[in-house]
């Protein structure tokens, strides 16, 4: 259904959403990609300006998933977003065998269209997986909108 080099992935609605409460997180800044840890509740924040795909990622325990899910966050103001195949591959290489989920964060009101290069990704990384498998179950993508008041909360009275 959503396959193709430039698959448009824009079906995210309130009826097709997931609700996750992030726990308190520690920050891990890094520039050298050989030193990336995998610590629960520690978000990794690449300082390289040219790191593809994501601004930060964090592994979080989700009882509903019987284990960890690696949340990858991409923060953008753009109305159109291309997930980078090289970024998907890179993160996959660091964290093999862990369920991953890309969350694109934008301001409220941005109608986002996300292009995910599923064919490239499946062909280069998941050859062992059946090609018919729904890409959404391999690497789900969500769009999270932040309101101005959440971003800049008004002073409490």
């Amino acid at each position, binding site marked *: 259904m959503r396959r193709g080099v430039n698959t448009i992935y824009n079906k995210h609605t309130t009826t097709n959403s997931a609700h996750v409460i992030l*726990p308190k*997180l520690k920050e891990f800044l890094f520039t050298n990609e050989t030193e990336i840890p995998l610590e629960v509740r520690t978000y990794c924040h690449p*300082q390289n300006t040219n790191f593809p795909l994501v601004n930060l990622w964090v592994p979080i325990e989700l009882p509903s998933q019987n284990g960890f899910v690696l949340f990858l966050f991409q923060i953008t*103001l753009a109305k159109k977003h291309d997930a980078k195949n090289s970024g998907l591959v890179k993160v996959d290489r660091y964290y093999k065998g862990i369920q991953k989920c890309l969350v694109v964060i934008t*301001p409220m009101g941005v109608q986002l269209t996300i292009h995910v290069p599923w064919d490239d990704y499946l062909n280069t990384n998941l050859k062992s997986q059946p090609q018919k498998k729904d890409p959404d179950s391999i690497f789900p993508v969500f769009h999270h909108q932040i309101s101005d008041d959440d971003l800049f909360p008004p002073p409490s009275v």
Partner: protein
Amino acid sequence: MVVLLRSSPSVSQLAPGSPQDLHFYSCDLIQRDESENWLWHMHDKYSAPLRSLFLFARTQNKYNEFINAEVDKLSLERLINILRYASESTDTSHLVISTEPSPTDRTSPERSIISKYVLEKICKVVLKDRVEKLRQLYDSLQDEPAMSTTAGMVFEFWVISAPSGGEDP
């Protein structure tokens, strides 16, 4: 990709007609050793131009001092004016603000804060980490499509500042 241009060998060292004499010698920064990692680090942190990378590669503290001095001169109003009226105010420092051609009109200058690290400094020193001042900056950047790069940086910076404030499990 930052490319280091090495000096080419003298013409006398090359055989006449050698294809090499048609090119500069160059090599990519491929993080092959500590010194190249350091240059990458400086580039990522300050978005410094190549000239500064080489001049200050061994005296990063000095470069930091220059940036601090420039940030100290800023106020919120001045920062907004510098970003908004790129063609009018020219007395700005390349240490803090970058001026580049607009992607849509190459004859129009477009300004942005030079790096995330400098933006963090501005937030601390100029905005004093005050939410309403950051919001004022963010709102003022929303009006102009030419300032979307900086608006994106501010949005990213502020969203990333938030995750540590989550809930206890």
